Every structure is written in structure tokens, then in C-alpha cells.
């Protein structure tokens, strides 16, 4: 989503400061743009928010800097720190991080607090390990002083310092009661960290800390909260981004018992009510009673025609494009090719469909100079900055309670946090706390979708048939500029969210060119699980499959030939082939394969399908997948995330479609937006290949494998290539002819 890998080697040492507060607490600035003022106040202990606190009773509180949407970071990040601290995990208490970027910022997002891109473990891994080791070292130094022995005679067991020679032991709690914290953090070099074989927690699968509350109804999401004196709010939003309400006929809505007020908002009409049922009833009554200005660029836009235009432009070399990436000399090499092949692929809009409809609670102070917010957000930064900006108050006057999220999938990290602003505006209007809830229909109509894209791909071959030149032209609706203009600017105006994954990383193709045709339809867009890899790998992996089949080569063998310089890739490919018994024919079934390097994680997948030619329906019978994401901190959770990624991929590949007519979303609930149900999900066979490499993420890596693997399987079975996701039955029938 941005250039994550460059930010990984975090230089923490120069910014380190350790602070002893009540009990024994440690704060440290991990990385990013640490502000000097914050560090100074940390030195004096004021406004100190510690990463780790050790209480005299042995309780160890560790902050989780990432937000929790089901991916498990709330457990895995503290677990990493606990490993190097040698903490007794049963004594660890996890605390959510307050929005202080200088201390908790994600090194993978330039210090912004943002949980996305499957990069929480990736980005925090090394800093948290070093910090854990530093805290352990402080405990050792204090124990050495107490026991009057040299520090190198001491070792640790979980939450205990041990002096083997004398048999004496000190618990971390005992040390914390009297310990001194040095002004400077001890210097820990990466080579002093634990070896993989010595891990007690990492790679061992502990129970995710929030799971017990998720089987008995006690886990709390923002939608579950009530605060004293609270009103309920609903919002009828403009059908098209940029429109404003014109005439509001609210007599019927206001007549509903319990309705307090109907308020005009900059982008919609809000209802304030004493009960949720009154708020929903009034919202329904307003649906046909508001007229809208025709401002906003999406009016008149039709996605079916739009994608035709995108495809025509991508194919037409006269249509201006900008170079996205280049390897070798593709412009020189392509004309020299002895033969060429071309193909086109398309992807439609898709919707996140997180199970918890968007909602938030806000309580603006009577003077309007502070606000308290309860919300599930992927970014504590945007969730506090946007309300601060709206109210014209400093960011530290925004008190955020970040709650568990009933799914995120990329929907909850947009810069303007639309669903939080609703509650802030409504609370300001009401002079009381307000809980604003979206209906499922609101959530879809105001969805922020995965963009549409059209791909023109061309391959050039030399005399020996070797693939030497590659060109990938992508016409794609903009995402970054819309969903987060701040990060878009920081990224130099490059739309990473629309373009990453378009090159052939890991493949032996000497000359490659990726070009972007920037398009702005005015439709609301966001990253969606799998992000741009979804569309871009559908195009590139499908095309490689086509090339192999045209040349009469086994597609998996062809991949191995192209990947010969990438040993980690070969391993996941060979293993998944073995698991699926790739060479074995199955009557009436087709197998298809795809491989992907996603931010360094190596994933390979094989789909087994059959096809009902009369109805055009594809049935997936099995999906095999291998993943090497480096050190898998919680291996079973990596499997769970991979299962989840595959199911998500099945939806966007087969059934999930958002269409826009005259700028307006046509779908409205789960009867016309079809996410996978239990019947749609095949047995999934997943293997994690543990390696000693730096962790590179697992939350969405398998999602982009699904479309090209299924397309390959259909090609295997029928000889027909599916070029347009989702592969709806009518599209499949048409393709079969």
C-alpha cells in the first residue's frame, strides 16, 4: 500500500529514551517522525504513555499499537515484545495504545498509527524485539545490583531472573518494586536477540487474547456501547459523493414518536432520536423526501460502460499513460521480439461487507473544545485528526476509545473517517453524546469500493521462445488520491493502492514496463483486502498461464522456469503442487495454479473446479495453498488468515459485484450482493512454511491467488479463458459460447 519494505530497518537507537514512572514503566519512541516535544515530556514523565509496565505483583502490561479487526495483532504484537522480555505470558495484560504517533506510530506507515497492508507484525517486529530485550536487560542490571553478582552470571526464565550459581531467584515483580531505570536505554544489537530455536512464545501459538469474549457475547464493539444521556443517530447520505441536500421534506420523519430533530449536514440529512427504532424509522421516512444538488463528478457515470472505455483506452497506445515501473529496456526490447502475445483483463467494483455496519459514538463537549469518540478504526491517527480538524481543536483534545472491529478489510482507514464524522457532527448539533449507526443499505450505498480496472498485457519472445519483454497497461480508477490525500501527497502523487503488484516480481523477465492510465470516475474507492494485487495479479498470473498453455507447456512448470532465480518461491510452488497432486488427472475437474510475492510473503495456490456448462456456474472443490511469510509469529493464526483470505478471494472472484448507474450504487443488501456462505466454501488445505526470514505479513496474501487459479482451472477444463471478474454464471456462459 505504500513502499513498506524501505521503512523496515528502523533506526531506533538515536531516539531512545527510557523513563521510570510509577511502578516500573518503559516508554520509547519506536520510529517515524518522532516529535521532540513529545520526547521531552516523556523525559519528565509527564503525559507518559508506557509501552510496558511491570507491577510489583508481577503483572506486565504491554501496549498493543495496532487495532484489532480479527487479524490477531492485538495478541501478536505484545507477544513479540514478551518473547524478548522473557515474560510469563499468563501474567501479561494487554492495553490498547492511545493515539500518540511519536511513541506508537507504525514504522511501515511513516509513523502514522495505521493497521493495514498486512504489515503490523512486519513493521513492529524488530523494534518490539529490541525494546523487549532492552527492558529485560534493565531488569537484569537491577537484579545484579540487588544480588551483588556480575550481570553475566544471570539468566532469565519466564518473568524470573535466575542466579544459577547460588540458586537465588528474583521475580520481575520483585525487581520492579525497587528498580531504577537508566536515562539511556541499554544498547541491544540485533545479533543479541533470541535465536529462532530459543523462542518460547513466537511460533508456538498462544490463544488470541480477545477470543474468549467472542464466544459468549462479552466482546465489545463500538456499536455495543451506550454512554449516559446518549441519543441515537442515523444519516441519509447523498447518493453521489459531492452532492448536498437541497429540499428536505421532514414532516413525516419528525412526527415519529421519539424523534428529537432532523438536521441538515454538509453531505446528508441526520436524524436524532431517543430510541434506535425511531432513528431508523425516520431515516426510512426521509428516503424519498430529500432532493439533492447535482454536484459531484460521478453523476452520469455508468460502471458497465465505464469499464468498456477503460479497456479501450488500455489497449490504445495513443492514450496517454504514465510509467509506473520499468526493468531493463522494454521499449527497445518489445519491437525486437520475434513473436508477441496480447491479452485483456477486467475487474469490477467490489464491496468490503464487514459484518459490523459502520458506526461510532461521539460526545462533543458543551464548549465544543473537546470530543470523546468510541469507534472501531484501522487508524487511530485519522480517527483523531479528522475530528480535530472539523472542530478546530488540537488533536490532543480528541479522546479516542478504539474498540474491536467487526471486520475491517480496508474500509476503516480512510483519511476522512466518514462514519466517525457523522457522530461528531451530530453530537455537536445535539449538544449530547450520539451513537450513529449505518444500516446495511447505508453501508453498501456509501461503500468505498475496490476500483474498477482494465489491463492490456503484452509479451514479447525471442527466437528461442524465451519471454523477454513484458508490458502491462492499466486503466484504473484512482484510490489513493481519494481515500487518503495526505498519504498520496507523501507518496509523491503515486497511487500505490491502485498499482502495487503490477510488475512480475521474482520472475526472470529481463525487460518489463508497467504503465498507469489514471482515471477518476468520482466513485468512492478504498483499498479492499488483497488491494491492487487482486486485479493486477489476476491479469499477470492469468497471462502467464495463457502463455504456457499456448506454448504447450504445463503452467506450473512454466512458472518454475520463470522463477528459477527465486528459491523461496520455488519451495512454495513445489510444495503446493505436491499437496494437490498437480499431475493427477481428475474426471470432469480442472486444476489451476497461481503464485504471488506479496510484500515479500511467498504464496502459491491451486484451485480444483468443475463447471455446469448449462448454468455457467463454477464449483470449487478444493483449494490448496502454501505460504512462507518468514517467521510465522502465530502459525495457526497464519493458517486462519489464509483460510479467510481464500474465502474472501472466492467472493470477489465468483459472485461479488457492485455496479454504478448514473453515479449511484445499484446493490443494497445481502440479497443482491452475494458474499460466500458455508455452501460456497471448499475444503482448504493450507501449509505454513516456516523460515527464518523477517515476517512479511499474512492477512490478505492468498486473496489475489484465487481469481487466476480459478481462471486457469477453467481454461484447463474448457480451453476458454475468463477475463473479467467476477466470473458470474452469465459471463461464463457467454465466454463458453
Amino acid at each position, binding site marked *: 500500500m505504500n513502499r513498506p519494505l524501505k521503512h523496515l530497518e528502523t533506526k531506533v537507537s538515536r531516539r531512545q529514551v527510557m523513563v521510570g514512572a510509577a511502578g516500573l514503566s518503559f516508554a520509547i519512541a519506536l520510529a517515524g517522525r518522532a516529535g521532540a516535544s513529545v520526547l521531552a515530556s516523556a523525559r519528565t514523565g509527564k503525559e507518559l504513555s508506557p509501552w510496558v509496565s511491570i507491577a510489583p505483583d508481577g503483572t506486565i502490561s504491554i501496549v498493543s499499537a495496532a487495532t484489532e479487526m*480479527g487479524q490477531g495483532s492485538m495478541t501478536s504484537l505484545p507477544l513479540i515484545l514478551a518473547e524478548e522480555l522473557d515474560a510469563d505470558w499468563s501474567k501479561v495484560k494487554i492495553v490498547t495504545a492511545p493515539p500518540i504517533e511519536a511513541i506508537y506510530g507504525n514504522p511501515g506507515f511513516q509513523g502514522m498509527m495505521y493497521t493495514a497492508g498486512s504489515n503490523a507484525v512486519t513493521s513492529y517486529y524488530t523494534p518490539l524485539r529490541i525494546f523487549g530485550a532492552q527492558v529485560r536487560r534493565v531488569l537484569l542490571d537491577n537484579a545484579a545490583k540487588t544480588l551483588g553478582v556480575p550481570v553475566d552470571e544471570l539468566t532469565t526464565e519466564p518473568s524470573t531472573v535466575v542466579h544459577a550459581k547460588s540458586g537465588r531467584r528474583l521475580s520481575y515483580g520483585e525487581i520492579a518494586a525497587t528498580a531504577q531505570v537508566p536515562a539511556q536505554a541499554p544498547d541491544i544489537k540485533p545479533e543479541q536477540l533470541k535465536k529462532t530455536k530459543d523462542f518460547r512464545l513466537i511460533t508456538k501459538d498462544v490463544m488470541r487474547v480477545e477470543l474468549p469474549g467472542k*464466544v*459468549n457475547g462479552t466482546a465489545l464493539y463500538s456499536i455495543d456501547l451506550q454512554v449516559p444521556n446518549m441519543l441515537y443517530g442515523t444519516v441519509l447520505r447523498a447518493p453521489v459523493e459531492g452532492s448536498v441536500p437541497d429540499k428536505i421534506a421532514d414532516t413525516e420523519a419528525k412526527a415519529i414518536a421519539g424523534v428529537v430533530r432532523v438536521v441538515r449536514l454538509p453531505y446528508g440529512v441526520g436524524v436524532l432520536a431517543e430510541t434506535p427504532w425511531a432513528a431508523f424509522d425516520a431515516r426510512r421516512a426521509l428516503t424519498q423526501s430529500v432532493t439533492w444538488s447535482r454536484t459531484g463528478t460521478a453523476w452520469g457515470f455508468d460502471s458497465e460502460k465505464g469499464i468498456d472505455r477503460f479497456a479501450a483506452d488500455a489497449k490504445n497506445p495513443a492514450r496517454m499513460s504514465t510509467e509506473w515501473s520499468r526493468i531493463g529496456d522494454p521499449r527497445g526490447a518489445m519491437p525486437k521480439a520475434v513473436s508477441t502475445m496480447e491479452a485483456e483483463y477486467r475487474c469490477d467494483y467490489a464491496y468490503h461487507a464487514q459484518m*459490523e455496519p459502520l458506526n461510532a459514538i461521539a460526545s462533543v463537549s458543551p464548549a465544543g473544545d473537546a470530543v470523546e469518540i468510541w469507534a472501531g478504526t484501522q487508524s487511530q491517527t485519522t480517527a483523531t485528526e479528522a475530528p480535530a480538524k472539523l472542530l478546530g481543536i488540537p488533536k490532543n483534545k480528541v479522546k479516542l476509545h478504539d474498540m474491536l472491529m467487526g471486520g475491517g478489510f480496508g474500509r476503516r482507514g480512510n483519511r476522512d473517517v466518514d462514519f466517525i464524522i457523522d457522530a461528531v457532527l451530530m453530537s455537536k448539533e445535539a449538544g449530547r453524546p450520539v451513537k450513529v449507526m449505518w444500516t446495511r443499505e447505508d453501508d453498501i450505498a456509501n461503500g468505498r469500493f475496490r476500483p474498477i480496472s482494465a489491463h492490456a498485457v503484452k509479451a514479447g519472445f525471442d527466437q528461442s521462445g524465451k519471454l523477454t519483454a513484458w508490458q502491462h497497461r492499466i486503466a484504473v480508477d484512482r484510490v489513493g488520491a481519494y481515500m487518503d490525500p495526505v498519504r498520496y501527497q507523501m507518496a509523491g502523487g503515486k497511487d500505490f493502492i491502485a498499482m502495487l503488484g503490477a510488475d512480475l516480481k521474482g520472475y526472470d523477465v529481463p525487460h518489463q514496463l508497467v504503465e498507469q492510465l489514471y482515471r477518476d470516475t468520482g466513485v468512492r474507492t478504498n483499498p479492499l483486502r488483497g488491494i491492487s494485487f487482486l486485479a493486477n495479479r489476476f491479469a499477470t498470473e492469468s497471462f502467464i498461464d495463457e502463455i504456457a498453455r499456448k506454448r504447450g507447456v504445463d503452467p506450473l512448470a512454466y512458472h518454475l522456469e520463470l522463477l528459477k532465480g527465486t528459491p523461496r518461491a520455488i519451495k512454495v510452488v513445489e510444495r503446493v503442487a505436491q499437496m494437490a497432486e498437480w499431475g493427477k488427472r481428475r474426471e470432469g475437474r480442472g486444476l489451476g495454479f497461481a503464485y504471488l510475492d506479496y510484500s515479500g510473503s511467498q504464496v502459491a495456490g491451486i484451485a480444483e473446479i468443475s463447471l455446469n456448462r448449462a448454468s455457467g456456474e463454477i464449483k470449487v472443490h478444493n483449494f490448496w495453498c502454501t505460504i512462507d511469510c518468514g517467521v510465522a509469529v502465530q502459525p495457526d493464526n497464519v493458517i486462519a488468515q489464509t483460510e*479467510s483470505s481464500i474465502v474472501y478471494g472466492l467472493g470477489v472472484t465468483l459472485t461479488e459485484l457492485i455496479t454504478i448507474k448514473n453515479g449511484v450504487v445499484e446493490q443494497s443488501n445481502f440479497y443482491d450482493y452475494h458474499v460466500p456462505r458455508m455452501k460456497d466454501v471448499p*475444503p482448504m488445505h493450507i501449509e505454513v512454511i516456516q523460515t527464518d526470514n523477517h515476517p512479511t505479513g499474512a492477512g490478505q496474501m492468498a486473496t489475489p491467488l484465487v481469481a487466476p487459479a480459478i481462471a486457469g482451472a477453467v481454461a484447463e477444463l474448457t480451453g476458454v479463458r475468463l477475463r473479467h471478474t467476477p466470473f458470474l454464471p452469465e459471463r461464463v456462459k457467454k465466454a463458453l459460447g
Partner: protein
Amino acid sequence: MATNFTVNGKAASTDAPPTTPLLWVIREGLKLTGTKFGCGTGLCGACMVHIDGKRAFSCQTQVSEVAGKSVTTIEGLSPDSSHPLQKAWLAEHVPQCGYCQSGQIMSAADLLSQKPKPTRDEIVEHMNTNICRCGTYQRIVRAIERAATEA
């Protein structure tokens, strides 16, 4: 006019209009928030409760329909997460975001009360009413099979 019914074995009363979805009375009135709002149209199952021992979409049930009846929510399934399904759910590490899981468990409990040893096909048929966007289906099947074995 008040509607009287029983929730998790205790008497409950609401003065919400009779057509109000039971879901909102349970969540906002009785503050039993384990039952979730997902779609409001009976398509996702996040709101699943038991009424007189049978599963029902609480978003599709008007509060007047439960007058005099007995409603069980996830909070009332067991006093201490000890229902075999709850134990199996944790043993199989089923939940991810967790939002749909109360509804999944309530649906599964209804299945096991009718058929203590369901086949895999019967599990899939019964559970198809409930959407899990995190795609935990494979683990849900395993957890139901485990609970059926261990119960």
C-alpha cells in the same frame, strides 16, 4: 403498551412499539449486546436468538411476537462459556473479528438440539443461513463436529 416476555430465564418488559424488531429491544433496551445487527433483513444471521428453544432472526421478529415467550441469547446459552459449542469454538480458534460468532453459535446450538450427531452435509445445510465475512466456515464445521463428539 408493555410487552412482557422472558430473556435468559428472567422476566423482561419493554414499552417499545409492538412492531419494533426484537433485536433492538434486546441490544439497546436490555443491553444484551452479544446479539448483533448485521443486515436487518434476515440474510446474515448475526442476530440469531432462540425463541422457545428454536432459532429465530431477532431482526425479523417483532417484539409483540415474543409476548409470553422465552428468548435465549448468547449470554444465556451457558453461565460461564461452558456450552460444548463455546468450548469447541475456542479449541478450534474459530473467531476472527468475532462479530457474527454469537449468531453462528446460536444457530449451531439449535442444530445440535435437533440433531445431536449431524452429518457434515446437515451442518452445511443448517449453517448456510449465517454469513461469516472472515470466512471461518471450515473451523465452524470442525467446532460443531467436535462439540457433537465431546458433548
